[in-house]
């Protein structure tokens, strides 16, 4: 029982990490709370749902199309709602347009897919294997592999690809990055695109493991990403991983051993306690101000 809960906790944690990466990267570059993040991810998940239910498309292709469309939507939000307002002095303004963008996407989603819980089809093999008398839940392990694989892939991209390094430099210092010849707008749009894509894949994995997708999961996605990013230390990849895992594991243990109705209250209580003890998050460093 304990290990089942732990495994599912880790799986949910890996999914939360995927959802958090985009949110946290955007924050690290622009110091912007991207309120539209969760609505973009649920948009992509709905697209995947429609492709699977209505058009019977191969799951892999459906995920790819949905993630790409999610990435494009995230980029459009950046170009239309944030880019012109990008300024050190007026961060509040883009915060408000972020909220606006979130509502526009949320309501469009509602027009298209309604606000009921829809049943999401199983896209991964749902059998349980029995090895040496242990029940191994194949679906959960597959989901975990996909999620961890994407996290590793993104980490390698940041570390070794020229544009990955460019993203890290832009997040450290935009004017100096531009003096290096890094195209700032293109790099930032890329962050939104990748963040949106990873978020959508996270949303699809989440929905398939709980066999459900609903409009409300969009807002919850934003809250999850925010909480995980803050717990782990906002702005860093390691922080997203630690925060996502923490949330996923906590939630599952509380849900199973206490009560699922106390899941969110206790999780957020932990958030408050962690922030009181370490305001920069578990992995967060003290932000140095530049002179």
């Amino acid at each position: 029982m304990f290990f089942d809960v732990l495994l599912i906790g880790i799986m949910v944690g890996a999914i939360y990490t995927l959802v958090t990466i985009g949110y946290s990267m955007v924050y690290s570059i622009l110091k912007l709370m991207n309120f539209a993040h969760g609505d973009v991810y649920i948009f992509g998940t709905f697209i995947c749902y429609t492709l699977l239910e209505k058009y019977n498309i191969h799951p892999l292709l459906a995920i790819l199309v949905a993630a790409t469309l999610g990435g494009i939507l995230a980029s459009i939000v950046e170009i239309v709602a944030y880019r012109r307002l990008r300024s050190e002095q007026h961060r509040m303004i883009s915060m408000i347009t972020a909220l606006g963008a979130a509502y526009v996407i949320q309501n469009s989603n509602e027009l298209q897919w309604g606000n009921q819980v829809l049943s999401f089809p199983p896209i991964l093999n749902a059998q349980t294997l029995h090895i040496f008398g242990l029940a191994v839940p194949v679906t959960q392990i597959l989901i975990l592999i996909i999620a961890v694989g994407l996290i590793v892939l993104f980490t390698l991209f940041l570390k070794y690809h020229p544009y990955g390094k460019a993203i890290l430099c832009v997040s450290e210092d935009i004017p100096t990055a531009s003096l290096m010849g890094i195209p700032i707008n293109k790099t930032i749009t890329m962050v939104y695109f990748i963040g949106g894509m990873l978020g959508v894949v996270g949303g699809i994995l989440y929905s398939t493991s709980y066999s459900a997708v609903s409009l409300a999961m969009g807002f919850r996605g934003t809250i999850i990403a925010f909480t995980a990013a803050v717990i782990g230390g906002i702005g860093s990849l390691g922080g997203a991983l630690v925060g996502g895992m923490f949330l996923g594991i906590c939630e599952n243990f509380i849900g199973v051993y206490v009560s699922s109705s106390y899941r969110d209250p206790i999780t957020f209580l932990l958030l408050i306690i962690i922030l009181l003890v370490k305001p920069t998050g578990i992995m967060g460093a003290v932000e140095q101000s530049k002179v």
Partner: protein
Amino acid sequence: MLTIKSLESGYGKIKALFGIDLEIKSGEIVALIGANGAGKTTFLKTVSGLIQASKGTITFEGKRVENLRPEQIVNLGISHIPEGRMIFTQRSVETNLEIGAFGRKDKKEIGQDMEKYYEMFPILGDRKKQKAGTLSGGEQQMLAIARGLMKRPKLLFLDEPSMGLAPVLVNQIFKIIKDLHKTGLSVLLVEQNVKKALKITQRAYVIELGRIVHQGKSSDLLDSDEIRKSYLGEI
């Protein structure tokens, strides 16, 4: 090489440059000197595209560049090494150099250039895997210069390279700048260390409150009573 005519710019409604004319010929090393707040950094930032010019023209190698973005200007061949070095402190020394070569496709030659600068600044070679933020001020300045050179620029802007450095390092940095000029690089040097700047440059401009008030041969300016009085604290 670089011709600037009646350039004006500033921050929002606050104007900082009031019609600057300046020229740098190919292969020249030129100083821009002036007091704090005179507009030296604003001038460099305007030419390299970090600040939008509100009036005037900037022509680099026959091409008008005043409306280009910084990443476009650096790709034309002007490398701006900013005040305060502004290295990427969270990244390794190596990554800082690699990012300096951003956009260059000649992988092999990038590697050769990096080796060249590790040789020129052995301390950078020793510490290439370390976070750049762990370097000392002088080492960071060397990294900033090497990073700016990774683009293989034709013209180098140096903003206060000696700021905050110990005297022995100041001499070293000035020697490096002199050597770079000898390799054929054109240089515009902004400095508060007026005496040293005038000694290693061929020509100089003096900026006061956003206007050029003197210009001429550096050696003549060094001898001028007014410069010695206002900037060298002599007489």
